[in-house]
């Protein structure tokens, strides 16, 4: 898989952060979560963000995804500069341009699987592209369970519904926050497989935060964060390679 040509298919940038800084608190209690981070996420690319706890990897994702505000720098999704947007416009941007996959699945228990998948379009008041939704469902392999409610589905199935929900509205970019964190390894592998397929076959852009080297190995590129800075980058990662790199940071962190 390391010989995949897709990495080079990334010709344009789906999202870009320049000198992104996020500071919590003031004065002595001030904590710098992101320290002038500059990073781009190429279109049609599967990027994993890794780093130890407190490295700022979730904060980076939240800021780029328009979920959180930032202190300085700039973030762009496509042609849109996020810093200038008000809450209402940010909400609209998330609705129309961004897909999300959460660790805790976050499906609405009152809605069926299909209703959950089409929820973003319902919110936007758009008619779902039936052909496309069917294609996504077929790929995810949930055809027989569309009428079920989340509590009738296993964890893996629930996360597959969540992936389908993210894909169904054809977003510019999909952000995943530890999407396999609550799954057993087999279900996790399935979900990651779908995410990779969506990038390979459908040309989707995916950014995923994870601390699992195996999960990261599904990506085209891994960015390593520590203390709010990008410290390393790895193209065409393997699980072992990622693990080794992580171990190196850990050792460095302990000695410094």
């Amino acid at each position, binding site marked *: 898989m390391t010989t995949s040509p897709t990495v080079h298919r990334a010709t344009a940038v789906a999202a870009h952060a320049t000198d992104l800084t996020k500071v919590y608190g003031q004065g002595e209690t001030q904590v710098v979560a992101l320290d002038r981070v500059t990073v781009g996420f190429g279109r049609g690319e599967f990027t994993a963000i890794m780093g130890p706890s407190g490295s700022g990897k979730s904060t980076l994702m939240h800021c780029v995804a328009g979920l959180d505000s930032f202190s300085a720098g700039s973030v762009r999704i496509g042609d849109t500069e996020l810093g200038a947007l008000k809450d209402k416009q940010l909400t609209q941007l998330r609705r129309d341009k961004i897909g999300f996959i959460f660790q805790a699945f976050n499906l609405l228990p009152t809605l069926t699987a299909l209703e959950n998948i089409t*929820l973003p379009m319902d919110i936007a008041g758009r008619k779902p592209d039936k052909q496309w939704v069917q294609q996504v469902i077929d790929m995810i392999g949930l055809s027989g369970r569309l009428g079920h409610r989340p509590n009738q589905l296993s964890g893996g199935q629930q996360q597959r519904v969540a992936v389908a929900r993210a894909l169904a509205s054809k977003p510019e970019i999909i952000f995943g926050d530890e999407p396999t964190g609550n799954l057993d390894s087999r279900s996790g592998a399935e979900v990651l497989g779908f995410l990779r397929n969506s990038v390979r076959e459908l040309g989707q852009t995916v950014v995923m935060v994870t601390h699992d080297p195996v999960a990261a190995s599904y990506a085209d590129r891994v960015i390593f964060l520590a203390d709010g800075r990008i410290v390393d980058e790895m193209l065409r990662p393997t699980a072992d390679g990622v693990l080794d790199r992580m171990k190196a940071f850990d050792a460095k962190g302990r000695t410094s």
Partner: protein
Amino acid sequence: MLRTALRNVLAHKARLLMTVLAVMLGVAFVSGTLVFTDTLSQAFRSQSAKSYDDIAVAVSAAPNQNDPNATPGLSEETRRKIEALDGVTEATGRVHGFAGVPDKDGKLIGAGWSNKGTNFAPGKDGKDSAYAFVSGAGPVEDDQIALDKETADKGGYKVGDKVRVATNGPVETYTLAGVFTTEDGAVNAGGSLVLFDTDVAQKLFLRPGHFMDVNVSAEPGADADRILAAVKPVVGDQADARTGQELADQQAKDIEAGLGALNQMLLGFAAIALFVGVFLISNTFTMLVAQRTKELALMRAVGASRKQITRSVLAEAGLVGLVASLVGFGLGIGLAAALRGAMNAFGLKVPAGDLVIGTTPLVSALAVGVLVTMLAAFLPGRRAAKIPPVAAMSSVHAVATTKSLVVRNTIGAIVTALGVGAIAFGASKGGEDGRMMIAGGAFLALIGVIVLIPLLSRPVIALARPVLKAFGVAGTLAGQNAVRNPRRTGATASALAIGLTLVTGLSVLGATVGSAVDRMTTDQIKADYMITMASGEGLNQAALDAVKKTPGATAVSPQQAGWVQVKGDFKSVSGVTPGDVEKVLNLHVVDGSLGTLAEGRVAVDDKTAEKRGWKVGTTLPVEFSDKKKGALTVGAVYEASEFVSPLVLDVKVLNAHDPKPYIPQIFVKMDGGPSAAAEKAVMKALGDNPAMTVMDKKDMRDAFGGVINMMLNIMYGLLAMALIIAVLGVVNTLAMSVFERQQEIGMLRAIGLDRRRVKRMVRLEAVVISLFGAVVGIALGSFLGWAIGETLRNSLPDYALVLPWGRIGIFLLLAGLVGVLAAMWPARSAAKLNMLAAIKAE
């Protein structure tokens, strides 16, 4: 465990606030009512003690045993004899009766029943101790009067002004000699008091030289009982003599009895408030327990017994109840003060006095508050004890199952069926027994439906889905959220359901009876005007003669009340004017003709005729009220009417035997129908007498439907109460829901639901729950109204069920408003939710 309970209370202050508010409201009503009635009865008691302060012995004329037709009275001679008795300083003679004065527009000041006239009885010093003059002096000439200050102010009368005074006779004009203040009961009740010179008052109210009462004041230190013993032989059996003390006690007792009814009504409000509050409290504790599942399981895991868990929840409830009761008691005292103020504002003057705060109100407030809270928390406490210790280890929330509703639904269905059965049976049975059955059945049905309310929530709310769809995603989600926890939704909706059941029931009844009365007045009365005395007494012959001379009057008939004995049975008789009666009243003649009344024949209603086997042509031996015997032949049979007695005679026949005709009503038909000019003409013919009321059809309807309208107004107060508690309940439930669904709301915000629509979602959920409660309440209330109405079918001709759609619409609107109002705060907090914290994994 008490420490844990205390900690928990402090930890959930905000959450428990709603519970505290609900308990507080109920307790405030209980204690407010008790303090208010205590205060009132104390004030009245001291007032009546004060008014009998100077009176050692009160003598009041009693009817003569041998001659019941003779007017009782105490002569001036008797009064002098009493005054001459040993130890007596003064014996004041009094006569009293109806007397009223008009305001500037010619309308009577005061309510009719509280317009009093009496005599000015100066003592040796020229003063009458019962009246303190603020200007002028008491009336001593025949053409003088004095007025109480408030009436004088209302009418704009000043000393020296000419004042028209209406009594049961013709209106006379007097000169105002003085204005006074007094502790007289009629004035305190918002009425008026006219003082006449004694001779005038005697002529007006009794007969010259006679009194109705003689009040005896004694020398200081004289023994009232000894004076009483001396008075008794003087008055003999023409009067009833008692000591002032005895009368004061009697009056105090009467006041207590009178206040009892008020007391019960207010306590009824409190009971409803608390009953509704129980659901709210129970709801809160259920949620608190659910939120603390892990914590409680941990306690079980480290060795707490089930009993201890239950006890800790109950202790928490007790603590909350105690705090709420104490605050509620404070609020209740304020409420009592406010109620007294309100009564004064309505013109019902309450004698001054301090608030009386006894121990009984305090103890009952605390007991009620604590017990109700603990009772409501009992089931949640039991449920808490059932949490298995292993729940502490699992990360998953215990999901409420619908399985446990099976038992509840079964019980609910049985109770509802019993209640509905009882109501239906009572409705078919009718009468007083039927009403009792209905009351019992209504209570059962109410309980049953409240037990069933979670089951009802799904199908009823499903009906609203198409409407909700119009609101987009927010609407769809709101509809689904509303039925997510049927138990909670049910408990929340209960408050509104109970309130609206009562109010709708009464509204349906009011509308039904009102329209029956409407039909009755339009159907049975052809007259344009009905004339009555404001005092509720009878009109006199002069008034009748005057009305007959009204220009434009085409038909005038009195409804003169009299009686005859037929074969030893007393029968009430209406005296009417033959020829005119058909034009003013719509008597449906079944047989014979009303024209025969002119020939001295009698008309009887069909019910009496059937019961007695009387027919047209039957001759009845009768004895008139003056004991003269005679015979009456039945000339007509008519359908029983609300407006005339079972027997109808020519008024001339009655007058021949009755020296003092009693005329409750006079009916007038005017040429050209009712008009402002016609009404004015009738009034003018009556000498513009403010004591006489000229009612048009609308006034007549109001007069007959008035009681029901008053009841309704009281009930609308109840609705307000239920609405307040409902708001609290809905706020409570929504706050919990928003709290529980933080993660969901966070996700929705993340994937693009804007704040406005998050708010709308919460608001719609609140509206749906409120309307659900309202729909259940309105349905149950309409059923109840129908059932009670059925029992009235026999006593109300033209009965037909009427649903007041307008009012029902208003109730629904109010319920929706409750939802919107209650959702304000929870919706805001949902919209402001920190998205990142919410979507973070557990």
